[in-house]
């Protein structure tokens, strides 16, 4: 490998012959059989370039990747957290609105019921008042009518007595020829009525 490194430095592209010679020489030895990873001749080069390339990558990761990707992830975490907070706030607000609506609805229902109840009571009492008024009026009319009827009946009864007395006066006069005073006739009628009763 040592000579391979050295010979590659010479323009080997145009001259392929040395390469084949090398490969022929490989089995023979002379340090050529050195396993490439263990060829210490190439180590300084590997070390130099790994330090440069890996150092570059490290600086890049530290300066660019971490702030950028870390920032993106941080932003997303914040955004999700704030969105979640907003969502739960809105949910709480919605719950509040719903319960307020329900309370209002219940109150309105209660109010409607009480209004209906009050109106019903009012109507009932009005009805009852009117009914009792009408009943009183009717009762009064009935009472009046009864008084009138009683009066008429009494009058009629009094007339009946009179008629009966006159009739008995006339009957007595016809039968006996004697005249009966009207007062006697009336008292006789009354006596007879009392006996019939």
């Amino acid at each position: 490998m040592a000579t391979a490194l050295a010979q590659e430095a010479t323009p080997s592209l145009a001259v392929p012959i040395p390469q084949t010679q090398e490969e022929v020489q490989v089995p023979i030895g002379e340090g050529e059989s050195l396993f490439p990873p263990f060829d210490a001749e190439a180590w300084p080069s590997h070390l130099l370039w790994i330090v440069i390339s890996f150092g570059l990558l490290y600086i890049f990761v530290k300066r660019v990747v971490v702030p950028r990707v870390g920032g993106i992830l941080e932003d997303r975490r914040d955004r999700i957290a704030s969105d979640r907070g907003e969502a739960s706030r809105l949910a709480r607000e919605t719950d509040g609105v719903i319960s307020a609506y329900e309370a209002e609805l219940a109150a309105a229902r209660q109010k409607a019921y009480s209004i209906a109840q009050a109106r019903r009571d009012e109507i009932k009492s009005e009805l009852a008042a009117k009914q009792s008024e009408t009943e009183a009026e009717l009762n009064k009319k009935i009472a009046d009518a009864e008084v009138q009827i009683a009066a008429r009946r009494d009058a009629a009864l009094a007339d009946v007595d009179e008629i009966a007395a006159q009739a008995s006066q006339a009957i007595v006069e016809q039968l006996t020829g004697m005249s009966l005073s009207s007062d006697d006739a009336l008292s006789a009628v009354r006596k007879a009525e009392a006996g019939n009763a």
Partner: protein
Amino acid sequence: MAVKEGGGLDPVKQFEVKELIPIQIGDINFAFTNVSLFMFVAVALVMLLMLLPTSGRANVPGRWQNIAEMAYEFAANMLRSTTGPDGMKFFPLVFSLFMFVLMCNLLGMFPYFYTVTSQIVVTFFLAMVVILTVIIAGIRQHGLAWFQVFVPSGVPGPIIPLVSAIEVISFLSRPISLSVRLFANMLAGHIMLKVFAAFVVSLSAMGALGVVGAILPLGMTVAITALEFLVSALQAYVFAVLTCIYLNDAVHTHH
């Protein structure tokens, strides 16, 4: 594939380092090689993946932004669950390591692409970064009290030296196990893949009977390819998880 080139049936040839831009400083060769190239390809891809989809900073992510965010949150959750919120200052390191190893492993699955993590120096460097971070951050945060990490609580006095010695050895072996695990997995997987693929080529070159015989290794190649994708992601995950566990020592001295 590379196996068709002369002598290309060698399964180790895929790990060959080729100089692209020769750079020599003093006696040391710092050439820009194909390995270096793929390090930068991996780094560039990670940057593009994290940068392009997130430019809109959309609150509702699209498909690609989702991938970038998932990778980010995956690493962040991993670190948070092992070290707690105190360890989040190491997040850039854990995320860089995870994405770099993952991207290198996955890039290695493309034919002709170099698997950077099959180089032990590379994985050892990454492991040393982790261990040195643990030591430096631990001492900076806790001062000398940080060395309590080697003295587990509840151990009776006489055997403390023995237990502490074991703890120190296990601590020192961490970078080795961390780097060798990743390196060996990637190397062995790619060699196995190439060996079976080479069977297919050499068998089918033998004529009709060979072509029939090549069916089995071909199926194996397909199966191992799928397995290697799994290993690529799994090893990146393992590397990142162990990094988190080790970093926990820097934050909490009692465990």
